[in-house]
């Protein structure tokens, strides 16, 4: 089994599924000869030709709309948006059409499509290139929103997203694209789109995250282990639909929960998770549910992005608060 980075795993999944299913087509800006600004589509043009690997004009709204049109004809478009900050022009098409054609035609038309984009900060990119867009999409009925955190999950979840009969927003962890490599088998096996992954078992506190922040969350768990605190780490992976069962089971066991997100705090994904725990898991809580998040500011430019993005220290700080309020027995 080869060791791959996340971006390599994404590229492998695309090669793999385009080989398997001739209805899969790619579209987006600079995905052809250029292989995508992050090289996610490298080699696809050469292998599958320009009819199936479409360099689009510079118009994200068109990219989304074109994907919708293609998908209604039984093709399986995978659209790349260069940075999640440029997903905003797709919002109208996604919420008003992609998520609705099946419903408004009572099943006559449907949109089996994927929109992929790198998400989040940390690579010192220019303005508008480092946003965290989860919340923009998680609230849309009829949609799936996925955010993988390691190479194997990127591979398996992307296959699942492409094969899913409904639209999927696939948010990739920009700053972790090449952070580490791990084993990925090109076995063509998809992972479930409706379940969290228990990244690490533990008994004292449940740490919940997804995407790029899983890295800091894992590091925080390591640090806590050194201090004799056993953290259970959950990778949400699929934000919509949200698998609360796994999270609630864990919180029932630990009685403590800290949720880690990079998106701004207010009305962010962590709030949905916390609200569900407050409704269904209240009685098992020893302490308040803490959220670690980006701040309610515009994503700063490169020099200050570290001020914004939660680091391990910020995660540990909230965890410590939890144990101050509810010390380990």
């Amino acid at each position: 089994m080869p060791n791959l980075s996340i971006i390599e795993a994404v590229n492998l999944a695309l090669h793999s599924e385009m080989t398997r299913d001739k209805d899969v087509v790619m579209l987006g800006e600079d995905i052809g000869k250029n292989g995508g600004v992050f090289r996610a589509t490298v080699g696809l043009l050469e292998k599958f030709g320009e009819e199936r690997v479409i360099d689009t004009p510079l118009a994200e709204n068109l990219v989304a709309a074109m994907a919708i049109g293609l998908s209604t004809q039984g093709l399986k478009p995978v659209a790349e948006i260069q940075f999640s900050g440029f997903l905003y022009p797709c919002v109208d098409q996604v919420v008003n059409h992609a998520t609705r054609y099946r419903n408004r035609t009572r099943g006559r038309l449907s949109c089996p499509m994927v929109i992929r984009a790198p998400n989040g900060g940390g690579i010192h990119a220019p303005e508008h290139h480092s946003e965290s867009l989860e919340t923009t999409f998680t609230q849309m009925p009829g949609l799936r929103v996925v955010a993988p955190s390691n190479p194997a999950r990127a591979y398996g979840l992307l296959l699942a997203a492409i094969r899913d009969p409904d639209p999927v927003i696939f948010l990739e962890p920009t700053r972790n694209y090449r952070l580490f490599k791990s084993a990925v088998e090109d076995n063509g096996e998809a992972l479930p789109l409706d379940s969290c992954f228990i990244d690490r078992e533990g008994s004292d506190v449940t740490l919940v995250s997804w995407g790029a922040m899983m890295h800091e969350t894992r590091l925080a768990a390591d640090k806590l282990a050194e201090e004799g605190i056993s953290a259970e780490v959950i990778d949400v992976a699929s934000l919509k639909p949200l698998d609360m069962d796994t999270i609630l089971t864990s919180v029932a066991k630990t009685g403590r929960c800290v949720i880690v997100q990079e998106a701004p705090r207010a009305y962010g994904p962590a709030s949905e998770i916390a609200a569900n725990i407050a409704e269904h898991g209240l009685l098992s809580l020893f302490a308040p549910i803490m959220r670690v998040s980006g701040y309610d500011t515009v994503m700063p430019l490169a020099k200050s992005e570290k001020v914004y993005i939660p680091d391990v220290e910020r995660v540990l700080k909230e965890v410590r608060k939890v144990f101050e309020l509810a010390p380990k027995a």
Partner: protein
Amino acid sequence: MTQHDPKAASLVARYEVFFTQFLDPEGKLKAELPAFARDTEQLKKMYRVMVTTRLFDKKAVALQRTGQLGTYASCLGQEAIGTALGLSMQPDDVYIPAYREYAANFLRGVPMESILLYWGGNERGMKYPAGTPSWNDFPLSVPIATHIPHAIGVAYAFKLRKQPRVVVATCGDGATSKGDFYEAVSSAKIWNLPVVFVVSNNQWAISLHSSRQTGAQTFAQKGFAGGLPSEQVDGNDVIATRFVLERALERARKGEGPSLIEAVTYRLHDHTTADDARRYRGEDEVKAAWERCPIKRLKAYLEAQKLWTTAEEEALNAEGTATAEKAAQAFIATETEAPEAIFDSLYAKLPRQYEWQREEVRAAGPKGGH
């Protein structure tokens, strides 16, 4: 226009907009008719479809006025465009409409009651009947212009699969102000896609007159922004409209690429039944527009040619009225869906996470419509 110094400035490109009309408002012929229009049966068919559509429209407005239908967008005065569209498209083509050209929907197999169900607030309306050309058509699109770029994806799929099919996307004059319209127009020719864009310029976008919608002299010229063959046609002349449409569709089918057609017409009714046009336009304008009505002019021509009798006219009116009435009854007889149906076409399979919501709705039972 700018005065250019011929030594410094050279001509790079020239674009011209032509306006086509065969039948003038009085029903007089301006040029020799195209082949299809020399066939009396075809002429009568076009006339019958227009009249029947108008009778449907009348019924729909009546249903709304009597509280039996929700907000409805009338096609009064625009029957020629829908008729020409429906008759120039092939069954395998795909129609991506805005919402007004009902005649095209009917000709492609949509039952009148489906249109009533949609405006009546029943999702069943857009589930067109299997086995008809409409099965592959897109639903009416209330959000203006955003359906148009879907035509790029659909047409691309046809090209990829080497199918001789054409996509026709329609919209109004107001819709041409949206980026969605332009992004489709600008890109269609990159891949030489089999798509025809049709702008029904009915002079009004609710209360905004077309002269205030854009700085462009015509809506046709917006096609030049994408390098498309673009032209204007008298949208109240069903013969001319069908003629230019068939020409554009044939080009597209032969692989000669996309085009844009501005069909000039007039919205004789209020924008919708929720609108009162007297707030923003004068009666004289509307009266004058009635003189250019598409039905009146074809009838005048048919009668002048002695191709149409009072008996035929009466039969057509009786038949059309009955058809519309039957559709109204079918519409009224159609039940609202079960409450939980709001979950049943959301995803191919409802994720388990939402099953409790569906169950809650099912258990609560019907809440009653309006």
